[in-house]
Structure formats: structure tokens, C-alpha cells
């Protein structure tokens, strides 16, 4: 009698254990090296003088380990000549991997979901986007027209607006937001 009962109990136990869906994973296998996830570590702005007089200007922001951790290693000032017209192009890079991943390509592919917004404070410059996703402007390429010598800042914002893009900068998430010190002299 006792044996039958014990067998029953054992059988139930077995069934219940088998019923567990997940395999036991060994606790804490350390993860593969960091940066498995995708980061945008760097933003590069390249200014080419349309008149071909002034030298090309490059402004870079670089924070290899992403938000938090170490401070950004490079955060350049934009230095432009007065009374000039520059064709500016923007690049987004992931420099934490080798080879460097150019995320600009992905943004261009998903142009209908993205918008780059520029705002100038204090500096005598005006910025116009010169590219488009077919319907709305995009802003990877832009034209910067400078006037008299001045100092201020330029905010560059990459908005992610999947399915909601309407040309406005007010909606969507900010994937990038950088304020470059801007000096026109």
C-alpha cells in the first residue's frame, strides 16, 4: 500500500518537473563584450564653402562609450567665416565597433521617418535644409549662410518620427541633440 502511494507521489513529481517549460540555465554566464547594442557615438558636420574660397571646416562630437560613463572625448566648436555660404553635410557614426558603422546610411534609407532640425542662437547664420525624403525635408544636407562676426550656438537635433512625420520638429523622439558652440569670425 505504502509503495503504491509513494509511486504515485513520485510519478506526480516527475510529471510536474517535466511540465516546466524552461531549461535550467546556468546562473550568470558573463555577457559577450560590451557594445552588442547599437550606439551612435559620433556626429560629424562638414562645411564646404560653395564659393570655393574658404577652407573646409569639420566639427566633431565623439562619446565612444555612449551616454553616461566617460565624458565625450571630442566636442568641437563650429568656426565659420563671415558672409559666406557653406554646403553642410551631416554624418552619424558608431565608432565603438571595428570597422566603424556609418549610421547615416540607415537614416537615409529611413528618410521618411527622420528629420534633422537646426536652431541657431546668437550667431549670425541662417540654415536651410537642402534635401528631402520625397515629401518633406530631411536635413542631412543643408546650406548655412553666414553674416557678420558673432558668437553663439547651433542646436542639431535628429528626430525619429516613424509614421508621424509631417515636417514639424515638435513631434517624435530626439535621437540626437547637440549644441555646438558656433563662432563666426
Amino acid at each position: 500500500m505504502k509503495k503504491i502511494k509513494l509511486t504515485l507521489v513520485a510519478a506526480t513529481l516527475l510529471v510536474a518537473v517535466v511540465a516546466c517549460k524552461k531549461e535550467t540555465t546556468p546562473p550568470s554566464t558573463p555577457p559577450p563584450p560590451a557594445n552588442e547594442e547599437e550606439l551612435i557615438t559620433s556626429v560629424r558636420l562638414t562645411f564646404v564653402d560653395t564659393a570655393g574660397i574658404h577652407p573646409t571646416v569639420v566639427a566633431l562630437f565623439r562619446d565612444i562609450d555612449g551616454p553616461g560613463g566617460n565624458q565625450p572625448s571630442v566636442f568641437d566648436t563650429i568656426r565659420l567665416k563671415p558672409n559666406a555660404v557653406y554646403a553642410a553635410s551631416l554624418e552619424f557614426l558608431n565608432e565603438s565597433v571595428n570597422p566603424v558603422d556609418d549610421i547615416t546610411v540607415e537614416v537615409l534609407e529611413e528618410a521618411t521617418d527622420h528629420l534633422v532640425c537646426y536652431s541657431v542662437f546668437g550667431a549670425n547664420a541662417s540654415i536651410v535644409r537642402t534635401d528631402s525624403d520625397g515629401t518633406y525635408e530631411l536635413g542631412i544636407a543643408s546650406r548655412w549662410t553666414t553674416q557678420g562676426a558673432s558668437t553663439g550656438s547651433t542646436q542639431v537635433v535628429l528626430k525619429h518620427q516613424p509614421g508621424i512625420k509631417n515636417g514639424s520638429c515638435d513631434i517624435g523622439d530626439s535621437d540626437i541633440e547637440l549644441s555646438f558652440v558656433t563662432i563666426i569670425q
Partner: protein
Amino acid sequence: MFRFVFVAFLLLSHFGVSQVDSCSFVFKGQVMDEHDNTSVPFAKLQLKELNLSVLADSNGMFQFPPVCAGTYTFSCFHHIGCEPVKFQRVIQSNLVEQIFIEFHFEEIEEVNVTHTVFKMSSISVEKPTELDRNYASGKTLGDLVKQIPGVSTLNTGSSISKPIVHGMHSNRVLVLNNEIRQEGQQWGSEHAPEIDPFLSTEVSLIKGASAVRYGSDAIAGVIIVAPKPLKYKAGVRGQWMGTAFSNGRQGATSAYLEGGCKRLKHFSWRAQGTYKQSGTLHTPRYFMKNTASKEYNFSLASKYETTRFGVELFYSQFNTDLGIFAGAHIGNLTDLNTAFNAEKPLEEGSFTYAINRPRQHIEHELFKASAHYQLNEKNKLVFIYGRQYNLRQEYDKHFSYNDSIAALNLPAFQLTLMTYSGDVKWEHQWHKNVNGEIGVSFSQQGNSYQGRFFVPNFKRRNVGIYWIETWKLKTFEFEAGIRADRTDLEVYMYENAVLKNYSHQFQRVNASVGGAKVFGHHWVVRLNAGTAWRPPSINELYSNGLHHGAAAIEIGNRNLEVEVSKNVQAGVTYKSAKSVFQLDVYHNAMDGFIYLKPTLPPALTIKGAFPVFKYEQVDARFSGVDFYFNYKLTPQVHLSGKGAIVRAFNSTSNSFLVGIPADRFEPGFTYIHAFKKERNLVANLSVPFVRIQDRVEENSDYVAPPNGYVLVNAQITYSFLVRQQECYISMEINNMLNQSYRDYLNRFRYFSDEVGRSIGVKLKVPFNIQKHEKN
């Protein structure tokens, strides 16, 4: 698999086991109150055929002298003036049973109360009332626990809610689910306990640091949840429950089947499942985009229990997919400020059941095997083994920029936590009036992550040993307990692409003492004091990075020491035939209270500047009052009220702590109409008042705390008995006036109002599938 196990259970329950005839069978058990599962003392039990009667003791325990095999009729006279509960039993072996007594409102009125018997306990154990339980059924566990005075909930949107006890939450509130410590990623304020409220209907709360038995880290208290106990009864029966609510067009269905076989005495089983789905929720003015959710759970339980020996196996699975309100997932601080200043969320939603990004997927599995053995009348051994698997996946609003990564549809990060635990307890009685328990508990845990770093991988081992003794006299009780714990933590993480290994060790002793005394016929006074401590949690030690929901950079502190709480509380209860009143006051002094301290300068990132918070330790104190009353104006009309006040200070900097519940008071009005023949109509109106939380430091938060509010909730329930089983249908309206309001304890109060009016219907139908001949 589900079906297979179910069939296996059925098969097992039909194996025949015959018994040897004799005249030495003992029927014993305990008389219990069905509503709150407490014992009913001094009931008289009668065996009609042999004209035997016995009296239960103060714990409701009774035992008949040995009888021959046969079918007998029993009556249980539980209260003077009440109708006895009658039942038949076929005795062919020793039988142990819990006799469940149900008090009906009208019955209580008939009782000629000359002396009210108290369930006296030095520690304050509280449960929601039956009415509150019905009201909360079909909602979250948080909603259920919130019915207890002194408990509020910390919400993230409307689908994630976790209990706050005495102003504290997360790692400071221990949740014991079916005798096993719930182990999820509790540190996160947006991580709710993974428990099916349809299954775990038995809820009680032990407030204060007096729960030495359950762990050292019950700083604010212990929430104990468990399924209804399995008890042997031949036949197959079950219950179905369905709920539907207008807001979110949500519905839930939950059912269980349980049974036992006459030929395999002492074996009982239960299979249970729940499915719940909700669409986009609506505030009075707009839809909250992406707030749909679904949940699917099941559990299986079996138990074999004789007079002296019992084994129980339990398995449950909890799965949920939650949409995170789109307006709250923000890229950076500018977005956050835009969201704050917007009159309504910038992205408006429409109704859908689809769950989009950002979303969470959570799975939790619990397997429990337990056994107990009664060595003799005075000694009992209990063994409990537990295994928990917890998976948490968080999907960002964005897919990855890289198409091939995006195509995998992976979560931004996922955490997998495995916990194994073992407990051994020895319950003993030294002396007629002295009972005690000595126990050892052990647990081992492993955590691993994939994707974005938020907390590192770790291994944790904990060993605890405790000893509690209770000295009980007729009107006085004294309890003392002591506990020692040791936790070892091994952390593995990459730093600048080099694998590092860090070890921490925490150990300490804590203790508690308490007493209760009955004064006269109506008063009980309780007093207790205790200490508790907890090691810093993994995020407090090692988090480092951007917390997306909070738009802040949180930095852990590896040098944190343990947090110690010294707690004193006093309570008084008055009970008479007409009224109940309970008041508790407490004071909790914390050494090394761990909190997030704002730190300058803000961190510059590619997404702009973010405020930086670092984990620091300060001294803090929490004090407060919880109260509850119920007064019967007439047998039909009852007035009730409950309320809680908490005050919390950072005593190092002499400032207010953030995130403390605002003062609240909830008066209620109940009308009970008892028809003939056990049919009841209960109408209930409750009006929660919540004051503004004005005890905050200036500029300590992004937005000032929202204004106070008053809501009106109403519920009407009709219950009736079908073949001795209770059915009910109930209708309720929450936020009847469709008030637009925000609650200080909702993390999404920055972005959105709370949900608007919701009309709900609930139905509970018990049923019998296979009935054995009258037993």
C-alpha cells in the same frame, strides 16, 4: 503539456487504494472561518449516530475519539444562536479536515454577543475584507493589497502597479508567494510582482519589521499571497470567473478545477488558468496611446496529506505583454520638458488591442515542492523547495538603425533571473503555552543580461537562520524572534572590454519582540519593536547609464553598506457587535537609507544633457498612522472608513523624502439587503479622498506634485447559493464622475491623466462536474 499533466492528475486520482476495516479511526481537524481563513475557537462538534460531542480548543482544533468505519453525520455549532453546519463523512481511515464556516451578515446579527473572542496576535496581520476582495478581483495584485489600510500603490501607467507599505516599496517590501519569496527584478519601480491575482486570492500583510520568520529584509512589511488551500474532498468541482470593464474594453476569464478521488483518500489536485486582455485605455479626455496589455497564466497543484504527513507540488506560470504608454517614452530632456508642458500627450492614440513598441514581455515560473511531517503532537518538520525563473524583456520604441539587427526584433535588453531556494522548519511546543519555530533558509540566484547594460550579471547566495518563540496565555501573548543572515554576491562585468569580477559580502543579525493584551471584552492592545536590514540591491551598487523612462543618468555606488531599520509600532483594536475600530501608529528609523541623490553637473551625451543621480546613504525616518473602522447604523446600513498618513524625512539633510504617499482617507457606505434563503444584495459606495503631497522640497522634481482629488466608486453585488456554493454577479463603476486627475505615485503623471470612468461586470459561477455519492 497542460492537457497531459491534467490527464495525469485525473488518472492518478482514480487509482484505487482500499482500506483495512477496523474501529480505530480518528476524525480530527480545525474549524475555520471561510472568509478570512482564520480559526474559529470553541465550536462544538457533534457526531449524531454515536451521540458523541467534542469541543474545539482556542485554535479551533478538535478531535473525536476513535470510531469504526462507517458513514456519519456531523454538526458543527460554531456560535450560540447560529444554525449548525451539517455534513456527512465516510470514515474508513483516519481523517483530518478543516471545517469551513461561513458567517453571513444576517447570522451575525442573530448572535447574542455577550463576549467577543479576539484573534489576538502580537504582530499586526491584516487582510482585505471579503467585500474589498470581491471589489479588487480581476484587477492587479496591487489593487487587492491596496484595500488594506496603510497600503498604496506605485504605478507606472495603469497596468503596472506595485504595493507601497508605510511609504516604502520594491526591495523594502517582501512578497511571499505561496510560501516562496517572490524573486523578480524587484528593484525596478516599473517592475510589478508577477503574480496572478485570480489564483492568489489569499492576501495578508504583516506590517513593520517584525517578520523575522520570512527574511531579514522586510523593512516595511511582508505581503503574503497564496492560493486558496487545497483540501481533500471527493469529486471534481470548479469555479469560473469572468470580468469585463468598459475602459480599455478589457476582459478576463479565469477558471479552476479541483478534486479528489474517494478511492485515493488524502489526494487532491487543482488546475487553474487565467486569460486577460485589455485594449487602449482612455482618460476622460483622450486615449492613452499604446496602453494595451495581455496576460496569460496557469497553475497546477497537487497535495497528498494524511494526519501526520503531507506533500505538495505546485507549478505556475505567469506571462504578460504590456504596452508602455507612448507619450512617456522620451528621447531626451527636451522631449521630457515638451511632454510636461503639453496640455495633452503629443501623440494621441485610438482604440486598439495591438501592443506596439515600447513594450515589456515578462515571464515568471514557479515550481514548489513541499513536505511536512508531524513527528508527534508537539513537533513538526516542514521542507520547502522552490525554483523560480524570471524573464524580463524591454523593447524600445525604436527598432535598431541597422536593418539586419532590426529584423531580429530583439529586445533592447533582457534580464534572466534564476532562483533556487530551500527552507527547513521545525515547529515545536516546549510547554503548554510556549510554541516556537526554528528554521534555516538557503537560496541561490543567478542573473544574466543581454543587450543594453543596465545591471551586470551576478550570482548571489543567501543563508539565513531564525528562531521564534511565542508565549500565549488567555489574554496575553508575547513573541520574540532572532535571525542571522549572510549574503554573498559575485558580480561579473566588462569594464573597458576587460572582464572584471567583484565580490561583496553582507551579514547581520536582526531581532523582534512583541506583545498583545486583551483588556475587558472589547479591546486589544499590541506593541512591537524590531530591526530589519537589507543588502544594497544590484542596481544600487552597479547601475550605470541612462534610465530611459526617467530621462536621467543613474550611477550606482559600489561602496554602499547595508541599510538598517529600527521599527516600533503600536496598535489598538476595538471590536463589538456593532463596530470595529483599529488604529496603528509606527515609527521607522533607518540608518544608511539608500536613495538617489541629484548630483551636479549634468552629464553631456549625444542626446543632450541629462541630470545625474547617484546612490547615496543617509539617515531617514518614516512615521505614520493607519486606521480603519466599520460601524453598523442598522443591520442593513454600515458606515466604514480607512485612512493612512505617512511622514518621511531625510534626517541627514533635514529635508522631505520624495515619492511618499499623500494623505488619504476613504469613507464607505454599505447597504446590505438579505433576502430569504441565503440571497444577498450588497451595495457599496466608496469615496477616496487624496490630498496633495505638499511635503516635497522645492525643485526636487521635474513637475510639482499634482493636486489632490476625490473619486466616487460604486459597486453592487448580488450573491446567492446554488447547491451550497456561492455564485455572484456584480456591477461596478470606477471613477463614476469621470474626473480628470493625476496621482503623485504614478510615474506617468508627468505625461498623462489617470484613466477615466470604467464600468465593470463580474460573474462568479462555481460548478460540480463529477459528484461522488453523498459523503
